[in-house]
């Protein structure tokens, strides 16, 4: 068993979920450090030092010219080689909310139908159909057959979304079919009234079940390796049951017991534990 996997949590230029993203990795046995994007660009720090990379939520560069685009460009142009090496080394990457938008716009997600990235943008996240930024809770369901290492064993969870540009689009249905065949449509918005395991549908769900009008109700996708994963909802924001809206009704879901938080672990923490455990086992 190796020591605590080192997690680089990017910050700077308007990323703003860096503190809590670092905290949740630390709660599950990671060794997270907030690293300024420019430290990697200048070469003062190297991604090689780390086993996991997280691109947290926020408003990088104010989301002007499209969410995640300017940060995506900095990474695409200035960090291309480091990112390529990171993926080639089989190390997990997660992008949450703005981080997902960044990974999509760098081309890391959904990526080519090949194990290594080519930094070509194939999808986008655009303005919610409602035209509004909203913070609301949604129900997510995970594809149990997805190669995604981040979501292993996860079935359904409640989770907040907080975005104005979360509608996942790709140019054609064949693009989606290809991703679906590889089980890369890892997580989708579902109607909580459906039975667990049967909620996923390609038909667009009405607002607010789908908060943004995403094609095929997509909330998050992974690359072909399952190591690079991004999603619009915020699993780190439900690391504890006391962050779930139902906790005063005594019905907040989550494990009955955990080392991290006793009876109060929330459903979101498992995602980060999965990555830490993956690194401990495989790297």
């Amino acid at each position, binding site marked *: 068993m190796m020591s605590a996997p080192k997690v680089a949590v990017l910050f700077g230029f308007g990323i703003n979920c860096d503190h809590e993203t670092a905290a949740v990795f630390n709660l599950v046995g990671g060794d997270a450090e907030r690293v300024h994007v420019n430290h990697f660009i200048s070469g003062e720090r190297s991604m090689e030092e780390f086993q996991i990379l997280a691109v947290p939520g926020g408003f990088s560069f104010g989301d002007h010219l499209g969410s995640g685009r300017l940060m995506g460009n900095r990474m695409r142009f200035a960090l291309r080689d480091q990112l390529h090496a990171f993926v080639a080394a089989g190390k997990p990457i997660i992008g949450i909310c703005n981080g997902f938008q960044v990974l999509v716009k760098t081309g890391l997600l959904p990526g080519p139908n090949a194990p290594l990235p080519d930094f070509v943008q194939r999808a986008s996240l655009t303005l919610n159909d409602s035209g509004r*930024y909203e913070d609301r809770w949604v129900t997510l369901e995970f594809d149990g057959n997805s190669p995604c290492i981040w979501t292993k064993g996860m079935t359904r969870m409640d989770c907040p979304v907080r975005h104005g540009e979360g509608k996942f689009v790709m140019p054609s249905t064949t693009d989606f079919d290809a991703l679906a065949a590889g089980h890369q449509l890892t997580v989708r918005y579902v109607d909580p009234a459906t039975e667990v395991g049967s909620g996923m549908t390609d038909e667009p769900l009405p607002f607010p079940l789908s908060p943004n009008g995403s094609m095929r109700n997509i909330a998050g996708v992974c690359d072909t390796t399952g190591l690079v994963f991004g999603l619009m909802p915020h699993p780190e924001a439900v690391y504890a049951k006391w962050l779930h809206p139902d906790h005063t009704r005594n019905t907040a879901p989550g494990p009955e017991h955990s080392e991290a938080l006793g009876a109060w672990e929330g459903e979101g923490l498992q995602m980060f534990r999965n990555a830490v455990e993956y690194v401990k086992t495989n790297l």
Partner: protein
Amino acid sequence: MAVTRVEVTPKIGPGMRDVRGDVVRRQLAADHNINIDDVRSIVGFLIKSEIDPGAIALRVDDLFADPIIEDGATNTLLLSNKEHFPSCPSTVVTVGFKAGVTDNPGAAALDGFKTIFPTSEKSAISTYITYAFFGLPHEVDVQWLAKTLHNNLIQRALVADQNACTAGQWPAIEYTEKPPQEFEAPLHVNMEIPDQDLIDLSETGLLALNLEEMQTIQAHYRDADVRAARTAAGIVADAPTDVELECLAQTWSEHCKHKIFASKIHHIDTETGEDTIIDSIFKTYIMKPTHDMQNEVDWLLSVFHDNSGVIAWDDDWSVCMKAETHNSPSALDPYGGAMTGIVGVNRDILGTGLGARPIANTDVFCFGPPDWEGDLPDNLFHPSRVFRGVHAGVRVGGNESGIPTVNGAIVFDDRYIGKPLVYCGTIGIMPRRLPDGRESHIKTPVAGDIVYMVGGKVGYDGIHGATFSSLELTEESPSSAVQIGDPITQKKMVDMVLEARDTGLITCITDNGAGGLSSSIGEMAEYTNGCEIDLAKVPLKQAGLSAWEILVSESQERMTIAVKAEDCAAFDALATLHEVEATPVATFTDTGIFHVKYEAATVAYLPIEFLHDGVPQLQLESEWIPPKVEAFVPPQAANHADLMLRMLARPNIASKETWVRQYDHEVIAQTAIKPFVGVKRDGPGDAGLIAPIHGDPHGLVISCGIAPRYSDIDAGAMAAASIDEAVRNAVCAGVDVDKIAGLDNFCWPDSIESVKTPDGRFKLAQLVRANRELERVCRAYRLPCVSGKDSMKNDYGTGEKKISIPPTLLFSVFGDQPDVRFTATSDLKQPGERLYLVGRSHNELGASEISFMLKESGEASGVGGTPPQLEHPERNLATYRALSTAIQTGLIQTAHDCSEGGVGVAVAEMCIGGRLGATIDLDGTGDENLWARLWGESLGRFVVAVKPEKEHEFIAWMSGQPITFLGEAVEGPNLTINDGYDEILTADVEAMVASWQGALDMTGGVE
């Protein structure tokens, strides 16, 4: 250099939509009942650069257009392209910024442009947006449409009407720059002039100083010692420079010096015969009680003197809070004004102690009715537009800064049409001790420290903000008083500053708000008793600013930070890493002089003592004559079920969910009670509750109270009600009542008797009464006020057209909550829960929401009567302690405070949150008058629900406190309210939901 035009528009196709255009279409439908077939949008970039347009064209898809969802084109107008616009629009409006106005998308585009073209150092980019309307109804005036889509104070618009569209004559915004300005050497201002000329000098120069203040300045320059010192310093001896006069005007402004709160007041009460002198409302009623309490507790770390009040939260962390208003700028430019309000108060937190981290925002707005159909005075926006703009500004400011909005309120009254109130508050957290051992709430500057200006550059935007806000709003109000914030520049600065704090680089820090460098460096210079500034070192947005303009400009996103000389290299390196502007502009001294230079020349030489303590105390007259308000007499016959649905739709009561949900209230992963609660997460939350240390359930409660309408009868009652409401809300979350701190934010109409304000004595008496109640209630509640602010000129116009706001106190509290796992929310949890009223209802219907509703509808003729009183606050405190500890032990999980609409509305809201019915009986809950027990707004009351198995324990716990059994939650669809044997109303819960949620949903729907 050439200017290249790039235009971008959303692709059309299955599943794709032009959301920007859609939003405009829906808002025109929601606000003006205008139905349009389709609106499409184009974003334009005007790139002035040495890079060849052909080279730019090749990279359009790399930067300006997202190739998956957008089409882009270079040096053409997309409207003329049939491929993108196959059909011809009937109207086109294009909107760009005026030269010199902050263009955030342009700045971001430039940053991205430099990533792609690293050699393009001298480039500049401005942006515009074009809306193409299809099927615009003929009766819609094109100029009117353009006016609703832009604000001519900061933007310009071009239009194409039907004829121009048919002819293909598309409007094209061109690149413009602010004309170059010449630096003007400081002027010497002759003060040896007659009194009337001194007054004129103050008015024409927007100095906002009165005659006595001008004379005090005049006298300073007559002093022989002053003249000798000035001669020695090489500055004009017998007159102020314009730099000095502007600096004094800023520092002595009502905004900065709170002259009315500091004044000597001759107060007469015609009811009681009282005739007294009050030497400073602030010192007497606010500061003294807090200092008395500070002697008795160990957790009040820093009160009044810093940018926010600091309390010890636990052994490792302290928390602080500040609330500000941004009323005048929000009236002129709702979006920009409100955004600078929120990001400005964030900087107050960053500038507290050695730097605190902002972790939560609160927003409280007061607007005119959004459905107002009456006349609008010149130069004022319709309340719905003010509402949209202010909301958008605060939303963008808060969300982009990554600070959750956890609590707030929106209040409506006709009189806020004249001046909206925009209160923005921020809570901060900092480690009690820094790694180097210093206590973080204490600033430690010494003479010799280097003073940096950090963040943005200085421009023309925001010159005269402080003095402007100390004047009433007129048609001539200057556009330079308005700025647009840039949250991302500020966010980068916050990241950098907190890192600098933790590495021990900061000895002193404050924000640049009102008065700019003049105030920030001026205030910090009091610590060491002197400073020397070189204005020529200050980085500028545009060349040519004169010395006084640099000194007083309120350009946003700036902090002033002192660093030891040996730490400057490390500080510079941090600034480079974070790409933050940081420039040393001054040095602290101990000379006793605020010494300002421009290169070698001394342009201001003011004794620190004169600058800060020289302003003469105002002498004011106050006289209380109780206003005569026609009594509220409820109608004989009333259908209370119908009244319930109407009350729930009152804007002051109705759900604000569609607005509040647009704030990020959960970033930082700490929010344990959301703004909306319950089974469908749409019932009202009473207070914000956060657990800011990840993994630790230790909580902090944030809540507020505001009740401006009681001022119509008695501003004292208004103040007491505001404080009590804030505390009640905090109790609902289980606050530790022995560790709560308060913030008082007064917004008042002009209270100085003059020709413009003939009723100044009355308005000042209202202020006196409000503050006396504030002292009485705060002392009884052991509730120290640790910070506050006042805005004292909230009037529009003069004479008969004058609109004055109702005197308004926002009272905010923040307090310790031992464990967020044990708290309560307002939603009913399950059928069979037993409902109790905590507190008693009294015959206090004066200025109640029901009285206003029935007066407006003509069913009653007045709103007068006894407003809610707080006769025995010390008894309330005992009740609050009992209830709060019942929540902290898990005995109670459902609690809701009674405010607007009384017990009736409180229970209705609990049913809405739980989607459950309830049957209650008001018999025995208070005074005889049913209206008072049902709709009255008596203070000190809550409705709580307790599980049947815990009922005995609850009753025992509350022994000695006033509790009355009301009834229970039921499975059925109805809320039934009885009074003994009489059924008063039965209302369907879903119907109540529809009334409550429909009133303020101005989204135009989602389809």
